[in-house]
């Protein structure tokens, strides 16, 4: 603010003070409800962070258009955590002690959720987190809630779909290769996959990880091919998802099922970049146009989201993370309305006991704060031609294999014959 405006500013401040003094009693209820969080706007996960932020802002505008929550307008206080966990304790203490927000929610991803946990536990706050993997297994905090539909035992439930689909193959698969990036999510997914390998009595012929900044993935794919596995389960982040998919095509990987836990193809950027290379690959998705009818509210959201996302240059499809970011806020909204206030203990109790209607369907929480029912879908891509983004809005490209209530088809195996 320049000096020129200072008197005007002071005048306005004095005015505001006067008004608030006169109306103090009545004004209290009219004070905005402030919700604070850190969200990655720069750094490795900034793309996802920005998409989530847009969704949350859409929710805020929707709520305010309806007159707010309990008569209070909703305001956000939001900082950039730079995808750097060490900024998180500072940001959240600032939110709570300086900005004095009424509620906090998490940023995107395990790495920035976990560092906020001790603070939440000390202050006994309800903490809704956005796509954290199994964060609460160590903290065991009863006011923690998580919006990713991974199920009560995230590690195991996350990979269940791939192996359930594999079990339907005829003849039954015998051997499996597990491979993933050296990072928190892939390691967790592989841990879960090992459980299924044991459960199904498969032979584990390859079980290794690679650094996520690898340039050439073909030696890895060849080493996997040398073990001739029936199944190849891959858990990866966007850049290495692209690298592994390319390498599999270049080396001509021959296996019956390939994929499972690739982060990246859920977003439009990688869908368009890889295009037909995705044909035949198994993966997980939170939404598919084929089962749009089972997500009756999502269309409303996507209509709002896609218009804004295109303008701001973030994920233009919004099938994956954005609806969940919106749903996270819906859960909080309903809990506040249900308890009639911000008492953290009552909120937590309400959230444990009730289920919530959101844009991603009915949500209810298990005792550890994860979804009571896993709902991530295992899918297979196919019929993709060219690299244009619009085709992904049509049905037919994403076949849902699991869970059964969403199933639209069966596995097309082997992978190398469905790749073309």
């Amino acid at each position, binding site marked *: 603010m320049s000096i020129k405006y200072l008197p005007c500013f002071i005048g306005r401040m004095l005015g505001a003070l006067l008004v608030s003094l006169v109306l103090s009693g009545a004004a209290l209820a009219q004070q905005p409800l402030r919700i604070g969080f850190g969200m990655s706007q*720069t*750094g*490795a996960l*900034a*793309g996802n962070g*920005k998409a989530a932020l847009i969704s949350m802002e859409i929710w805020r505008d929707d709520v305010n258009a309806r007159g707010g929550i309990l008569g209070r307008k909703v305001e956000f206080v939001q900082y950039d955590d730079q995808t750097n966990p060490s900024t998180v304790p500072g940001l959240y203490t600032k939110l709570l002690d300086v900005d004095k927000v009424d509620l906090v929610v998490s940023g995107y991803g395990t790495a920035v959720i976990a560092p906020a946990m001790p603070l939440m536990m000390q202050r006994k706050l309800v903490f809704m987190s956005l796509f954290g993997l199994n964060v609460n297994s160590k903290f065991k905090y009863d006011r923690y809630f998580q919006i990713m539909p991974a199920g009560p035992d995230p590690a195991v439930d996350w990979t269940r779909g791939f192996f359930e689909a594999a079990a339907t193959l005829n003849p039954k698969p015998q051997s499996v290769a597990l491979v993933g990036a*050296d990072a928190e999510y892939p390691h967790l997914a592989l841990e879960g996959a090992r459980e299924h390998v044991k459960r199904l009595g498969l032979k584990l012929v390859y079980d*290794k*990880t*690679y*650094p996520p*900044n*690898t*340039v*050439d993935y*073909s*030696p*890895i794919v*060849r*080493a996997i091919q*040398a073990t001739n596995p029936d199944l190849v389960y891959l858990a990866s982040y*966007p*850049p290495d998802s*692209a*690298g592994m998919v*390319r*390498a599999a*095509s*270049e*080396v*001509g990987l021959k296996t019956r099922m390939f994929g499972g836990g690739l982060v990246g193809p859920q977003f439009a*950027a*990688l869908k368009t*970049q890889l295009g037909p*290379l995705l044909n035949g690959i198994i993966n997980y998705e939170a939404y598919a146009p084929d089962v749009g009818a089972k997500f009756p509210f999502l269309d409303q959201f996507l209509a709002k989201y896609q218009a804004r996302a295109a303008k701001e*240059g*973030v994920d233009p499809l919004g099938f994956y993370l954005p609806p969940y970011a919106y749903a996270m806020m819906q859960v909080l909204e309903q809990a506040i309305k249900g308890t009639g206030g911000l008492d953290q203990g009552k909120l937590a109790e309400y959230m444990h006991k009730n289920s919530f209607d959101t844009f991603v369907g009915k949500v209810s929480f298990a005792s550890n704060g994860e979804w009571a029912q896993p709902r991530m879908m295992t899918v297979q891509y196919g019929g993709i031609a060219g*690299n244009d983004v619009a085709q992904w809005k049509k049905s037919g490209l994403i076949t849902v294999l699991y869970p059964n209530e969403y199933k639209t088809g069966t596995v097309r195996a082997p992978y190398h014959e469905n790749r073309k």
Partner: protein
Amino acid sequence: MDSTTALFANAIVAGLLLGGFYAAMSVGVSISFGMLDVVNIAHPAFILLGSYIAYTMNDRLGLDPIAVSVVLSPLFFVLGAGLYRVYYLCFEQRGQESLRGLAFFFGILFITEVMLVLVFGVDYRMSKTAYADTTWRLDALDFPMRLVVPFLVSMLMVVGLQLFLSHTFFGRAVLAVAQDPLALRLMGVNPIRVKERAFALSIATAGVAGAFLIVIQPVQPAIGREYIGLVFAVCVLGGMGSIWGTLLGAFVLGLAESFTSTFFGPSWAPAVSFGLLLATLAFRPAGLLGR
């Protein structure tokens, strides 16, 4: 070919292809750091700048990224010349190049990175080329064009640079400048001018290497940092100031990476590569082909 032999042969091919790419990334550093004693830690930032320029031309006009980068390399040459002039005036002239020069390039690295973030955003970008998704097969050997094309152009560039430096007056002046600037002055050559051009040449190679990078893998502004270690490792491993050494160092690292990935576990690849570098520094500091 039985499967183990094929695996082995493919590991060699993959290592060499990767090494060719690493050579293109590092040859500029070999000139600036190895020959001119300019610790240009921002080299990867210029590589990324090259990537994004190639990406833009590819995305908007559908041009081949590598062809674009070769045509636009004079632009990088000019950029390099300008940068060296600033560096010379601010640091070399005052005799403070070692530490402050380094910090200067660190700053340049960040500024370039942020500029790229502001212009292109933080999403991964990749170029589209006709050959990227094709693979040429010879018996059991795979030659993915995505790596072969950059490899070939890189070899042309590196060998061309070596011939240029060893067979022209300018080249010999560059080789001499690091050792004895005074003697050059007596020969009637302005060492500052020689260093400026040589540095400009090194930045021009960064532009071309940037196009290779975006042909090979998706690119995001912050990944430049991941290559700082690699380019200097290649340079020191092969031997400071030797282009053949850089080529050898690049192949050694490429092969080490592909063999570790194939036979031991890809997770250990960086430790093997950089362990190799540490061992070289401890026991043969002049590098494999050091003078």
